[in-house]
């Protein structure tokens, strides 16, 4: 077997094997049971005392959302302040300027919502202060926010009737101290020992062997790259993200980074089962997600490893695959695997340029973000999946003529309305955004000529990708798009905010409403949700909603490009 294929197989297998015990561990710590990391409890108590927080008070779902949104608002103002003034703040040895207000708005929002769309390049657009105290800080806390929101929903789905759903700060702080910080530390050290820089020095000037003068950008990269992946943030230290040879120096670092970004989203699925003591249910969820993931991965790996037919036509040797935008130490298979894991999971880091991928790969990446729940981002991916489960329960309940119930709670009109609004919000934001941008471009192609790096169908795909990535809080891009303009900064900023908070508020509200309802014990008349049959139902609900809503736009972009490219 081809060793590159074997490499991605081993990587996926080992990630699943480690995600299962991590899921069990997550369930233990969030439930508050005894765990081997209890030695960190004094640190958590200290953080609470210094922060003036009571982490034992039980909260209703509304109080949870209040706490979550308030602290997010504080982070937004902090981020705006840092980015707008970074040029005059310390730790700026390269004398990079402050961001313009619209770029700062876009960047602040994008890191606040765990999206990490980057309309700047790290080398010249950010300072070490903003990388560490704004961007990396947000990478930690927004990941912890997503995990906490997910645990609130777990809590609400427990047996019994309650409106007390635990404490937001408790879940949030434990996510940081017992998961994100320690694992990031290990990853950062692996990166540092493999050659990723960790310093505060300015660019290193040097004269190359051939006699060219260059300046090599460095900085505190190792620390940031670790949480960038682990927290499924995706915002790179350098402009080229994990394609950059200092951000991702070896095949080993590539494997470790790719492992890190898949780990927690997978573990959250298993944590769900362990938390509710219904492990079969999480295997149903895992099965649906994995089948869908593999359906997207297989064509991408195939097309990337087979190269560009237009280049084959020139007669060059493409036995290593399509190499435009790829790095030689990583290769086509690892780049394809990375591309799909980073789009089904809302991480959005890149180790090759998605804009240069084959059209079908681009489409698979778009579909990963359009569905946004095949593993999904830390915490929030599961919330998106939960919305589809609610819809599937309702539809299958109607099909068999039973009252729709999920885990002993009736799903009624109010929950369904919320679920449908959240499920339809995603296509609305993506398609309306793309439609407006395409309308502007077509109306005045000369004024907006700087937007698109590629003509024709691919140019349309670039715009579609940008809104899809924003709405999925993904942050990767078809980076040929000239996106640091007022239009793109503001419009994607608005999309990102709506697409982050509504899909958190919606599922938490549904779960909160369900938790208050009377618990109906399982009986012979219950529609079982931990079976393969129900899994197939969820699978089709997701694919029909994604495919039907997005198929026309995919036909205009990647599909049209594919058929022209392969028709020669």
């Amino acid at each position, binding site marked *: 077997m081809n060793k590159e294929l074997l490499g991605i197989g081993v990587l996926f297998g080992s990630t699943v094997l480690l995600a299962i015990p991590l899921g069990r561990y997550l369930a233990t710590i969030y439930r508050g049971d005894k765990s081997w990391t209890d030695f960190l409890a004094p640190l958590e108590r200290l*953080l609470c005392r210094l922060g003036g927080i009571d982490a034992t008070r039980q909260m209703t779902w509304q109080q949870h959302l209040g706490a979550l949104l308030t602290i997010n608002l504080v982070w937004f103002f902090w981020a705006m302040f840092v980015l707008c003034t970074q040029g005059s703040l310390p730790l700026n040895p390269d004398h990079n300027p402050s961001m313009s207000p619209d770029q700062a708005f876009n960047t602040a929002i994008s890191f606040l919502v765990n999206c990490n769309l980057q309309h700047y390049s790290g080398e010249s657009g950010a300072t070490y202060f903003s990388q560490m105290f704004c961007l990396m800080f947000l990478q930690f806390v927004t990941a912890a926010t997503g995990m906490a929101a997910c645990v609130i929903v777990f809590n609400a789905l427990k047996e019994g009737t309650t409106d007390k759903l635990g404490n937001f700060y408790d879940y949030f702080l434990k996510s940081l101290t017992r998961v994100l910080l320690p694992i990031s530390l290990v990853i950062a050290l692996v990166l540092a020992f493999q050659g990723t820089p960790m310093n505060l020095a300015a660019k290193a000037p040097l004269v190359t062997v051939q006699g060219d003068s260059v300046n090599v950008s460095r900085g505190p990269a190792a620390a940031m790259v670790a949480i960038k992946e682990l927290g499924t943030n995706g915002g790179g230290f350098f402009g*080229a993200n994990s*394609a950059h040879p200092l951000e991702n120096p070896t095949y080993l670092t590539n494997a470790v980074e790719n492992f890190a970004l898949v780990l927690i989203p997978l573990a959250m699925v298993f944590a769900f089962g362990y938390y509710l003591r219904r492990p079969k249910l999480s295997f149903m969820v895992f099965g649906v997600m994995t089948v869908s993931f593999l359906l997207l991965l297989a064509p991408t790996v195939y097309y990337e490893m087979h190269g560009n037919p237009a280049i084959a036509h020139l007669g060059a040797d493409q036995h290593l695959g399509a190499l435009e935008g790829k790095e030689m130490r990583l290769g086509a298979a690892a780049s394809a695997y990375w591309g799909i894991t980073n789009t089904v999971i809302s991480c959005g880091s890149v180790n090759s340029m998605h804009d240069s991928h084959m059209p079908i790969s681009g489409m698979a990446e778009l579909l990963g973000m359009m569905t946004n729940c095949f593993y999904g981002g830390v915490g929030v991916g599961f919330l998106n999946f939960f919305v589809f489960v609610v819809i599937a329960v309702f539809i299958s309940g109607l099909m068999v003529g039973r009252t729709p119930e999920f885990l002993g709670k009736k799903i009624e009109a109010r929950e369904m309305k919320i679920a449908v609004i959240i499920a339809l919000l995603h296509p609305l934001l993506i398609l309306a955004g793309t439609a407006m941008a395409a309308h502007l471009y077509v109306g005045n192609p000369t004024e907006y000529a700087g937007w698109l790096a590629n003509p024709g169908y691919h140019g349309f795909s670039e715009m579609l990708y940008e809104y899809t990535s924003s709405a999925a809080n993904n942050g990767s891009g078809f980076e040929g798009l000239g996106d640091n303009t007022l239009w793109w900064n503001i419009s994607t900023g608005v999309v990102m905010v709506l697409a982050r908070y509504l899909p958190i508020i919606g599922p938490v509200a549904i779960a909160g409403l369900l938790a208050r309802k009377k618990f109906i014990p399982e009986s012979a008349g219950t529609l079982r949700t931990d079976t393969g049959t129900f899994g197939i139902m969820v699978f089709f609900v997701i694919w029909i909603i994604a495919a039907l809503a997005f198929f026309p736009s995919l036909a205009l972009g990647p599909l049209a490009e594919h058929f022209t490219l392969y028709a020669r």
Partner: protein
Amino acid sequence: MKNQLIPAVRLTVVLLVLCSVVYPAVVWAVAQLAPGRGEGVQITRNGRVVGFANVGQKFDRPEYFNSRPSAADYHADGSSGSNKGPSNPEYLATVKARLDTFLLKNPGVTAAKVPAELITASGSGLDPHLSPQGALVQVARVAAARHLPASSVQALVQQHVETSVFGPDHVNVLQLNLALDELASHK
């Protein structure tokens, strides 16, 4: 919301210390034991820093093994790919021009022997590597330009192939070229 604002601000300050001061400080401290001490692994020749092991640099002269085309022109204070789509006609014309130029500079080589990385730009614009074939196909030209026997240049390339368990095998162009200079000076 109002009574949550003060704790939110306080907690933010506390977490800034934890995540943005303590955590990077620990990483930095331990990284002092790493190769390059967290500064990036530098390569010196005759006491002068000539490059970073992991950062590609531009080699386009005939007497050196040429590195890949770069959208960033190997200016390492930035990084970028070309972001050209696979069907872009302007891009495909560029690729064709690169192939033609390569064939012109390397007489005797046919298009089927030219691996794709020599005519496509990398993701970062700073790719330090070539595939072994990407170096081997340049051996005849380099040997002729250096007046070295092709067999010894070929052996040099073979010595510099880094095999990877799961990834593609590759050659570090900077290190290969430094070794080439060394070989030529002992001629």
